[in-house]
């Protein structure tokens, strides 16, 4: 599925761009993402965990930064992960582009998300999943923006640790709520009869 986002940053192009490319920080802007290691090949390993009441989805994944164009200020982030209990996997390609906007800049993110396996195979849930994915990417964008602002405030310490920014954590819960609903939606595609739990 295709998801498009854009947001303004009150920073000149070059600065916004460098903040954006600080992957250890920006990757963690995705709600629930925890960066575990930076590999020799420059790729990043991490976890996406979502606590959903009875259901704990844990994705182990990797992310890579590709096609970095310092002139056009564009790059591609590829991420993919598998649920540890074999319930499916997710792959995402995010094309990021920064363009000047007066003295400030605007960030465009185009994400192509493909879910597969158990979690993707319930038609009744497909609508909710799309909505959920869209909101997760929005949350990512929002967190990224928060991070840029944090840097703007020179609060390097806020993110230097590489842990999710405040924004990310805040949105994590929102993200969880959304994912929660989506997951329940998958479940409800599961059984041929209504009735009750």
């Amino acid at each position, binding site marked *: 599925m295709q998801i498009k986002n854009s947001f303004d940053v009150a920073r000149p192009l070059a600065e916004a761009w460098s903040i954006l490319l600080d992957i250890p920080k920006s990757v963690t802007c995705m709600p629930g993402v925890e960066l575990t290691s930076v590999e020799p090949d420059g790729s990043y390993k991490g976890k996406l965990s979502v606590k959903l009441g009875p259901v704990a989805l844990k994705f182990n994944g990797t992310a890579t930064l590709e096609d970095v164009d310092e002139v056009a200020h564009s790059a591609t982030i590829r991420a993919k992960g598998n649920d540890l209990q*074999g319930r499916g996997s997710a792959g995402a390609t995010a094309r990021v582009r920064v363009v000047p906007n007066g003295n400030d800049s605007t960030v465009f993110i185009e994400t192509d998300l493909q879910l597969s396996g158990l979690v993707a195979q*319930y038609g009744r849930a497909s609508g909710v999943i799309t909505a959920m994915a869209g909101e997760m990417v929005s949350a990512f964008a929002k967190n990224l923006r928060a991070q840029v602002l944090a840097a703007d405030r020179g609060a390097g310490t806020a993110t230097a640790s590489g842990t999710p920014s405040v924004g990310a954590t805040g949105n994590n819960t929102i993200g969880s709520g959304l994912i929660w609903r989506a997951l329940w939606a998958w479940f409800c595609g599961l059984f041929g009869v209504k009735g009750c739990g």
Partner: protein
Amino acid sequence: MLAGRGRFVDDIVLSGMYAAAFVRSSQAHARIKSIDTAAALAVPGVHAVITYHDLPAALRERRLPLFVPHPTLTARMQHALAKEEVCYVGEAVAVVVADNRYLAEDAVQLVEVDYEPLPAVSDCKAGAQAGAPRAHLDLESNIVSRMLSSVGDIDAAFRGAKHIFRDEIFQHRGGAFFMECRGVIASYEASEGALLVYVSSQGPHRIKRALLDLFDLSDTQVRVVTPDVGGGFGPKGSFYAEYAVIVACAMTLGRPVKWIEDRRENFVATHQERDQYWDVEIAVDDEARIKGLRGTLTHDNGAYTPWGIVLPWISVATVPGPYVVPAYHLEMRSVLTNKVMATPVRGAGRPEGVVVMERLMDRVAREFKLDPAEVRRRNFIQPSQMPYDVGVIFRDGRKVVYDSGDYPACQDAALQTIDYGSFRERQAEARRQGRYIGIGIGNAVEGTGLGPYEGATVKVATNGRITVSTGATPQGQSHKTTLAQIASDQFGVPIDWIRVETGDTSKISQGIGTFAARTAVNAGSSVHVAAVKVAAKAKTIAAKLLDVREEDLELRDGYVQVAAIPGSPGAASDNARQVRKSLAELAVVAAGMPGFAMQDGAEPGLENTAYFTATQSTYANGTAVVEVEVDIETGRVTILRLVLAHDCGRLINPMVVDGQVMGGVAHAIGNALFERMLFDDQAQPLSTNFGEYLLPLATDIPRIEIVHLETPSPLNPLGIKGAGESGTIPTIAPIIAAVEDALSPFGVKILEAPITPQRIVELLGDAALGRTR
């Protein structure tokens, strides 16, 4: 069965047996970069986790066998376990063998497969376009077969035609969804080199043949047994990768191994049928008589080609049906997609062909403002034209030549039963009350009793017991009853005196199996031929012993006796009781006495094996007429009446045939109104449970009214034709037609199956607002 004593594969328990579960691809198309089985192997109770690289050399080198090759086909067969590329969600990647299924599933979710996703082909029409992604990395094109079916001078037919009508018709993917999922048990006795396989199939002989192809074993080492089968409907006639893998597991581990497909696997790994996109044109003269029919069929073959092009071929050959089509030109394109394979499901492509022809008949009727029944009458092949050469070649390589049948009579019988004559009045009256009812007609001719043969051995043991053995394999069609009945007719004994053995390669050496409604025709004829020979031999021996003429003898109640003399039955029976020989006595004589020569060199034993070979298919035919009511505000379709008139030649057992017809009709109703197997644009299946893939329930099926016509086939000694699919084949078309007819005041045209309430409301537009407008 009624008391819970049935014996299905999952009911069989062998000592020391392990349970297996498969790791299946979650990707529609991907490269396998690595598989990590360590965590799975560490689970207590897990004995093996096997990937492609752990398979025996023979299985790594070979791919699954293709039973029905064709010159136009670029065959694509799969490995038993995926090697480096997966081509559909559900493709087997690894297998876990453990103490029980619970543990095996625990381990399956710990096997980590690293996939590199590749672009997938979801829709066959898109896949046929130049520049579409390839369903397999090394494919030149996704189109693996282009086949032309051509009769007469099509260009001339269209050049001269006054009226040409064109329609594009889509028929959506569905499946068999038998209630018993697939299952297999393999047991290998290393000391004797004996492999025993229990499998829920439609023919153990073909499974055995595939195993012989894949494992270097000799014929006598392999025994395949099919116990009770919980429904087949086509897909259980295929050979599947899992069967080879489970045999390999049993041979490697030296323990019996059982794999029972669960319903989730069944949705992604058992063969399905369709999609089909048809783009067709019909040319007719001023009297609405067909001059020619041409077009293309784009067929979704799925990821591999286990049945070659059998399925779309049957569709193409079925289109002309009971009508005179002087010129026919159909180009079939079979397209590989990244979906589970499409192979024959009940009807085997015929219902699709019928939908196409009947939609065109209705189109012609609409354009000419003629009664749809009348348009069909004008185009029917007449009984006087039998045998009728359609001109097209059937998938058994022979020309389609209808052997017999009275198509006009069949349609009339159906129309009369449903009181077609008064329908338009009833329809007008209903509309005055704001109700929308409609009627539809579907005619079909079905090639049944496909060759090459199905053998049967009939044997009278020295204790007088009669056994019939055949390679045919029942899945609820009551074959045993049917075949016992055929044999009992020759011996003059009650059916229950005869034991029928089926589904065991050790009981008869050659067999094909049950599909295409072929069993009654082939096995039935073989039983008949063999029984006749055995009965004759009994008479010959008895005649000698009793010193009477053979022609004076009859078989009754297990005895060969002097036949009743017309007029004085009493006397005859007294006479008979004095001079008669039991089958047991005769069998003993036939078996020969140790140390004595056989009587004038007669073949030993009171038995005979016959392999009846049909010179060509027999052609059954049927007409379905359906009356529906459509709720225009919700789009709900209610079937009010459904009449099916059909001619499957001589009826052996009407109750059994009716059962087959009613079951077949239920499949048609599912295909017409409910069953939709959805995939997303990356070929991820979206319908993987019975809450989303909707099978018809008792509340969705009306009472079915059946009319039998009997035009005996000249092609076999019993004059029978197949009946197994006669309920399904003609019945999808008239349901669609009836819905369209009900909605005719709104000019709705339906060119797809299934048709759902939502779709109906979409087609109705504002009209669906009804009273709320």
